[in-house]
């Protein structure tokens, strides 16, 4: 089984040289730590920055320089700063090559719910609805089940929807799933995981066919 770092490392294998990438809060943020050496990937932070760098050294924090998670960050060479309208302009126009998001639920048609639990959590969607409505390639990084042990890979989302038919791939601690017209197609599975376990924990349509590789990270 993968831990959250393993999930991030597996997703980092999807990166390509020259990609502009938006990483959501949580596990997606960790992907930045595993960009392959020599590969040029530009990180977009939707509050208005291209070229997000690592956290600053202690003492170098700049309150004017934060990411979308409100964390202090740095800029890399070649960074640019812009306003929020320009930021979402590049998102809506499909300029961002890859978006990695967390989710509470994903349906087997690629619907995603990740912004609200009615009566419990009132935080807002932030930029998630804009991102999922327009991103060309969305990968969801999440745990396979919720805290109650219930599947998060469902036939239909039960929580309020963030976007319809937009998720292309899901990476969980158990495996890698492409979302196609047939549902969640298992492509790779983590070591020490069985197909039976994946079946038991996946409520949405699951397709297990052909040679399922073991995830190498």
């Amino acid at each position, binding site marked *: 089984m993968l831990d959250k770092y393993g999930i991030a490392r597996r997703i980092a294998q999807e990166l390509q040289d020259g990609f502009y990438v938006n990483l959501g809060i949580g596990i997606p943020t960790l992907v930045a730590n595993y960009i392959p050496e020599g590969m040029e990937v530009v990180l977009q*932070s*939707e*509050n*208005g*920055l291209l070229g997000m760098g*690592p*956290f*600053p*050294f*202690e*003492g*170098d*924090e*700049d*309150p*004017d*320089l*934060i*990411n979308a*998670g*409100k*964390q*202090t*960050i740095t*800029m890399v060479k070649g960074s640019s*700063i*812009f*306003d*929020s*309208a320009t*930021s*979402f302009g590049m*998102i*809506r126009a499909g300029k961002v090559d890859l978006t990695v998001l967390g989710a509470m639920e994903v349906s087997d048609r690629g*619907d995603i719910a990740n912004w609200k639990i009615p009566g419990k959590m*009132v*935080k*807002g*969607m*932030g*930029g*998630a*609805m*804009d991102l999922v*409505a*327009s991103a060309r390639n969305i990968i969801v990084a999440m745990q396979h089940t919720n805290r109650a042990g219930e599947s998060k890979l469902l036939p239909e989302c039960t929580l*309020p*929807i*963030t*976007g*319809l038919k937009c998720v292309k791939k899901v990476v969980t601690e158990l495996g890698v799933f492409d979302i196609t017209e047939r549902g969640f197609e298992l492509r790779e599975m983590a070591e020490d995981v069985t197909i039976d376990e994946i079946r038991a924990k996946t409520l949405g349509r699951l397709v297990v066919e052909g040679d399922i590789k073991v995830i190498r990270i």
Partner: protein
Amino acid sequence: MKKVYSNAEEAIFDIQSGAVIMLGGFGLCGIPENCISALVTKGINNLTCISNNAGVDDFGIGLMLQNHQVKKMVSSYVGENEEFERQLLSGELEVELIPQGTLAERCRAAGAGIPAFYTPAGFGTEVAIGKESREFNGKMYLLEHAFNSDFAIVKAWKGDTQGNLIYRETARNFNPMMAMAGKITIAEVEELVPVGSLDPDQIHTPGIFVHRIFQGTGYEKRIEQRTTRPRNP
């Protein structure tokens, strides 16, 4: 041309209870700290605040919430504020949650003479309820309207006496669009310089959008999430 005011209290002199106010900033980054303090001191209420976030419990717009001055918040994300959540769940506070890009574009549209526009964000979600939707090139979009606000209050790094503004780093965020959108736009700046001392090529907000400007004092610039890495890993 008299745009320069001596402080926040003077610059907000005519903001009354019931006003619709845009407030720049993302999280606590680039928020108009001086004007927020002045609004808290002034004690007006029933305000509608359009701002990406609602501050934290004891800073930013959170101070106005604590003081029960806000009737309605229009935001994209309000997760950092317990008092906000309490007032919302108890029904004291009205909230309209809007996708962040839509929020930005509704500000921009207001400042660009565009009454409404189509965006794909929120189609198929509860954000779409009651809104016109339309298909373009096989994809569905929602009709969203420009904001109508009485005042826009923004924070810039430098400004000149004609109201030309320059922002710093990610403290820019919503400030430029909100500056464009206010019927009356008030800018507070860290440094107010004489006209002619800013490079015209570097100006982010042209002074035509700014009605009042003053040099703020005592900026706290509180950091919401202080994240660092060790110098010698």
